[in-house]
């Protein structure tokens, strides 16, 4: 049972599932909290969406990451798309992690991620690829194209049935509550996704892909890169909220402003 009032701070990592650590940083000014995750199993770790290079963000993540594990035991850095809020710290972490660490991203994102100034090559991930820890714990990568970039994906930890959803299911959260609720978070999520996603078709695919994953294997937790962690009992609520969402409306606003007529094909 989780404490719905639990908050995170700027010092301590929080274990939200077995070996899954939340390293979130509050961004009160922009209400756009940034949440990297570390998965630790035995003597190795996978770092998902390590975060920003902005000092006040990076320092917090570094402090928390060091409390989770010796950084030299990080064997994989995974980024789920190419945005700077989740990737810009890559070149800062690169010299600190295992010398054999691989850096991976969805295929279409690799050509962009390299420009953060990495020394290593970025390995391309495709839909259905997996990553196995030494003792067999498996991560599955599921592409969610155009949600919100062609090379976007979510990552599924088979052991804990946790989905790391990247921007999908993120929200604008001005405080540091760890868990999503049925109060403010639906609106915080709708505002973020409604403005940042351009295609309802892309969102529908992502939602249906998660529903399929839930039906086949079960989802216990959704861990987005912004906002709050969604516990099992609220997952249907948020899947439905995503289904009802209107996205891409800024196109209509600007089309109207400039007298552009669009054929509604998407």
């Amino acid at each position, binding site marked *: 049972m989780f404490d719905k009032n639990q908050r995170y701070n700027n010092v301590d990592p929080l274990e939200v599932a077995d070996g899954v650590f939340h390293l979130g940083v509050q961004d*009160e000014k*922009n*209400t*756009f909290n940034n949440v990297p995750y570390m998965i630790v199993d035995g003597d190795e770790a996978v770092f998902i969406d390590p975060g920003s290079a902005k000092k006040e963000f990076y320092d917090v993540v570094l402090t928390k990451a060091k409390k989770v594990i010796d950084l030299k035991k990080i064997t994989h850095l995974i980024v789920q798309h190419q945005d700077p809020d989740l990737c810009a710290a890559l070149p800062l972490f690169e010299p600190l992690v295992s010398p054999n660490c691989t850096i991976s991203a969805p295929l279409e994102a690799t050509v962009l991620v390299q420009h953060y100034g990495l020394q290593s090559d970025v390995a391309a991930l495709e839909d259905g690829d997996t990553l196995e820890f030494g003792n067999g714990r498996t991560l599955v990568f599921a592409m969610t194209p155009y949600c919100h970039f062609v090379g976007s994906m979510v990552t599924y930890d088979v052991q804990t049935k946790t989905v790391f959803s990247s921007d999908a299911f993120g929200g*604008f*959260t*001005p*405080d540091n509550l760890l868990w999503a609720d049925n*109060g*403010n*978070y639906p*609106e*915080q999520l709708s*505002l973020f996704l*409604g*403005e940042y996603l351009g295609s309802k078709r892309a969102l529908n695919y992502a939602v249906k892909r998660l529903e399929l994953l839930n039906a086949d294997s079960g989802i216990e937790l959704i861990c987005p890169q912004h906002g709050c962690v969604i516990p099992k009992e609220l997952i249907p609520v948020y899947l439905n909220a995503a289904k009802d969402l209107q996205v891409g*409306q*800024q196109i*209509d*606003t600007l089309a109207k402003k400039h007298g552009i007529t669009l054929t509604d094909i998407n």
Partner: protein
Amino acid sequence: MDAQKAVEEILEAAKPVTVTVDSRAALVEDCNKSGIMVDADLNISSKVKEEHLDNLANNLRSPILKMVVRKALRKYS
């Protein structure tokens, strides 16, 4: 455009993203500066005109709240 309704909707939508004391105070300040008198619970105590809505769109400092306004303007313009 019904500016009064638009601002009411904006403030309602702004509540979940201004739950901290500082963010709420900043919004109240931006509203008042725009000619829209509101209290800390975001209740409006003045008549809202279209020019106030324009002022608000310009005066808001939070990028997230600017998006809230943009969303409301789509509906009411």
